[in-house]
């Protein structure tokens, strides 16, 4: 017997504030204008890997299906290549809407535990706050420590190649004014 699952979206499950929230974000104003042509999904190099294609995410966002959108892998697979944004016939800033969705998914912790992409974003964020710069090797190490430590050992060949070519460094890059940076970031957020 097949598993029973809901095939139709119900109006009652819509979060009306969600669409308004995205449209109020810088770059989200044009969300209403989408007429579902599918150009974005067509040019997106990652669309074949997405659970909801860009076109569907725009539709679901506008309709207020917050859970589906913020839990999709689409927003994380978006590589910010802007191909969709420049080809959208309605001038919708799709890539920037994807960023707005990423920010909300992180804020509300709506991503699978140990999913590498948001984990990388958070480690990147923490590292910049701490030192003002990113040290690539440490980023990768921290990413893998928080997702799949075994993968680190699987990367031995890449590690050796980078060491051989002098591109591997465990030095922690930092700026002098780390305190100033933190105060600046907090003041901008209104803290």
């Amino acid at each position: 017997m097949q598993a029973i699952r809901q095939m139709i979206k119900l109006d009652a499950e819509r979060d009306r504030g969600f669409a308004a929230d995205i449209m109020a974000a810088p770059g989200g104003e044009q969300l209403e204008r989408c007429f579902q042509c599918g150009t974005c999904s067509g040019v997106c190099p990652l669309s074949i890997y997405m659970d909801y294609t860009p076109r569907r995410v725009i539709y679901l966002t506008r309709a207020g299906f917050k859970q589906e959108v913020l839990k999709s892998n689409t927003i994380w697979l978006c590589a910010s290549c802007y191909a969709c944004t420049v080809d959208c016939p309605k001038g919708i800033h799709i890539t920037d809407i994807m960023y707005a969705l990423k920010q909300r998914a992180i804020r509300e912790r709506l991503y699978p535990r140990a999913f590498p992409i948001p984990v990388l974003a958070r480690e990147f964020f923490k590292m910049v706050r701490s030192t003002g710069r990113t040290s690539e090797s440490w980023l990768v190490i921290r990413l893998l420590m928080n997702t799949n430590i075994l993968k680190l050992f699987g990367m031995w060949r890449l590690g050796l190649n980078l060491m051989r070519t002098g591109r591997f460094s465990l030095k922690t890059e930092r700026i002098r004014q780390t305190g100033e940076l933190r105060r600046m970031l907090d003041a901008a957020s209104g803290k």
Partner: protein
Amino acid sequence: MKYGYFPGCSLKGTGRAYEESLLEVLRALEIEIQELPDWNCCGATAYMAVDEIKAFTLAARNLAIAEKQGGDLMTPCAACYLVLVKTQHYLKEYPKVRDAVHRGLNAVGLRYEGKVKVRHPLDILTNDIGLDAIRARVKQPLKGLKVATYYGCQVVRPYATFDHQDYPTTMDRILEACGAEIVHYPLKTKCCGGSLTGTLTEVGARLCHILRAEAKRQGADLIATLCPLCQFNLDAYQDKQPGQWFEPVKLPVVYFTQLMGLAYGLSEKKLGLGRNIVSAAPALRHRSAVTTA
């Protein structure tokens, strides 16, 4: 004329060959640059995924430092370039962003009045220096070398200021001036996957495989890039099996500045050519001229 210089984190890390070769070429062309004092990470794509206001403020600190130093800001890294240009646009177009960013800058005694021109080296080389001056310095033309020029996404999208959005040619013309033959490369602005090679490696590596396979199909001996992450992605995962139906494609991937440096007769070591994981040495033997040590 002196330019400000914003290298970004990658050019001090895995992308150091880009900085090495760029500085060599700039020296040969007698272009003066001044690295921004105490510059911070631009945030790239990862930071914007977490907090938008902080992301713009982070980038704006560099703009404030650049404005104080003076001069146009040379920004070779594609991600840094896009972040800074996007920040400038958002500061102009969105009062909410402008107010928050200025609140942040003012809190630490910094100010930014929107006067910095953020420029990619391709823009500076093409429009300030000119192809004639670039051609004049060539000592060993890259004759016989077939190059696929790969621009990637962030330098041409969404703000295509100095080149065409879908089929840019500034890098092509510079390398032609150095004697190389540029092959037709329809995927020259198709995404390499960016940081996905580090997080979802199969996905990212597959996109890179497609790029190398097409370059090879078009007859390229090597790929020239302008972005440190593109170079890393195209270079570092060549032995990854792209899928059960495809053979891995091996093709060297260099920075366009490294090719310019070779045409200028500069040392391969100083141009960081030893830093390629897949060596460009066999492809460079195609050149009819002799390499100096």
